[in-house]
């Protein structure tokens, strides 16, 4: 793919600019990107100075106001409020994860590939977690089957999921 500006060099920079909800994409070579003030180094520098909450928070003012209407109540254990968590980007205790759980999928989705833990599990959680991981695995398989329009398979997985959940 050739740079849309100079039409000579290979594209190395894909730039997405969103202004007033209108998305514009630019595909430029390194030189043209740099001459237009886009430097990978500078971009990385900008990211470095961006704090986690800024990274997460939508810039639009209206969003944060509407979010506050349905904000979860403050944590009775550590006193953390949802607004403070969004501002500072740090949880205060384990309970915050459950209290703020409605918003966490969206939040984690921005930086994490999935919101279901797949890694190591403490010994005391072995039985419980393997089931929730299995549920998540089947749920993803079911979604994929639906996307593939293999409804028979999706239905079979659904009944498997149901029996797994009833058994718990």
């Amino acid at each position, binding site marked *: 793919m050739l740079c849309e500006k100079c039409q000579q060099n290979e594209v190395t920079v894909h730039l997405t600019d969103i202004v007033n909800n209108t998305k514009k994409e630019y595909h430029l070579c390194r030189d043209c990107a740099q001459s237009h003030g886009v430097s990978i180094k500078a971009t*990385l520098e900008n990211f470095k100075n961006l704090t986690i909450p800024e990274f997460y928070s939508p810039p639009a003012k209206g969003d944060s106001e509407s979010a506050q209407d349905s904000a979860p109540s403050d944590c009775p254990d550590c006193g953390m409020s949802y607004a403070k968590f969004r501002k500072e980007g740090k949880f205060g205790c384990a309970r915050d994860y459950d209290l703020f759980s409605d918003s966490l999928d969206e*939040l984690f989705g921005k930086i994490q590939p*999935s919101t*279901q*833990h797949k*890694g190591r*599990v403490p010994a*005391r959680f072995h039985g419980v977690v393997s089931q929730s991981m299995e549920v998540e695995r089947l749920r993803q398989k079911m979604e994929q089957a639906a996307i593939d329009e293999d409804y028979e398979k999706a239905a079979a997985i659904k009944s498997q999921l149901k029996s797994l959940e009833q058994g718990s």
Partner: protein
Amino acid sequence: MIFEGFSTDVGEWLQGTGPDSDLVISSRVRLARNLANSPFTTVANAEQAKNVADRVEGALERLGSGLPMRIQNLENKSVVERQVLVERHLVSHELATGEGPRVVGFDESESFSVMGNEEDHLRLQVMKSGSQLNQAWEQMCPLERALEEELQFAFHSKYGYLTACPTNVGTGLRASVMLHLPALVITGQIEQVTSAATKIHLAVRGLFGEGTEAQGDFFQISNQRTLGLTEEEILENIASVLPRIIEYERKLREELLERRRERIEDRIGRAYGILSHAHVITSKEALEHLSLVRLGVTLGLLESVDMSQVNRMFLHSQPGHLQCLQGEPLSSEDRDRRRADLLRGILGDSA
């Protein structure tokens, strides 16, 4: 010096051994863990923080009976001593400069350390010399299990190990390799590596990890994603990109030798000349020249210097070590003089 040996030795991660150690200085894995039923360090009051520090210290002491360990209370340490621990990568900058009760436990060879009351209650890390991420992880697993038997960690069936910051949740694993990439920097190709790494969700940082800039051609590459992947998948992601970076850097080094040998030899020779003859030198300047001398050693262009000298210069010329060697805090100007003395001394051994 806080410990005998700190003034003459380097930690295991800086031995200059292990696979691909000409480019990969060290490999590190770190796990973030919090104690169940205790508020995180971010909001803990003095009493709660003390309780966590005591519990971590107690667990480390019990662990220490089977695994010789040096346990240090950071509150009792001077600024310089804490700086030394940071320079040896035994504690993070955050733990060194934080407030309240904080502890660290590490083994004599400095291959692992456990920090108490960092951003999370516990930060466990294992460091190895060269490209040994999997070996570091293998050493980490029993260490984590042993601590888990002593302390109950906060865990959620969906979100995994719970951490103060959402960027650590799940596995709590940050795996990183410290790379020396002078040829990529000299030829201006480093941005390509940076952008390729970023594309597969890896972060590129400086010598001392988060929030530090790359200095003297040293870069740290680490995972950004911690949730929704297994620990092995996280390690594999780094392992998948590492050989390509290594190959790229090696190819450029060969090309530099073929096409610009005289200029490269000149730059390396001048760097050696400055390090072995300067009387005043800042840490930034020293690091830049050390990077070139290190390149010269790996390319076989500086036969009078060996890697252990480079690694000693690298560690002992840093501000904390210099002041500890001197036994007193030094002004910036005095440090620059002492640093030059130290470098001349180390290189003088080989002259």
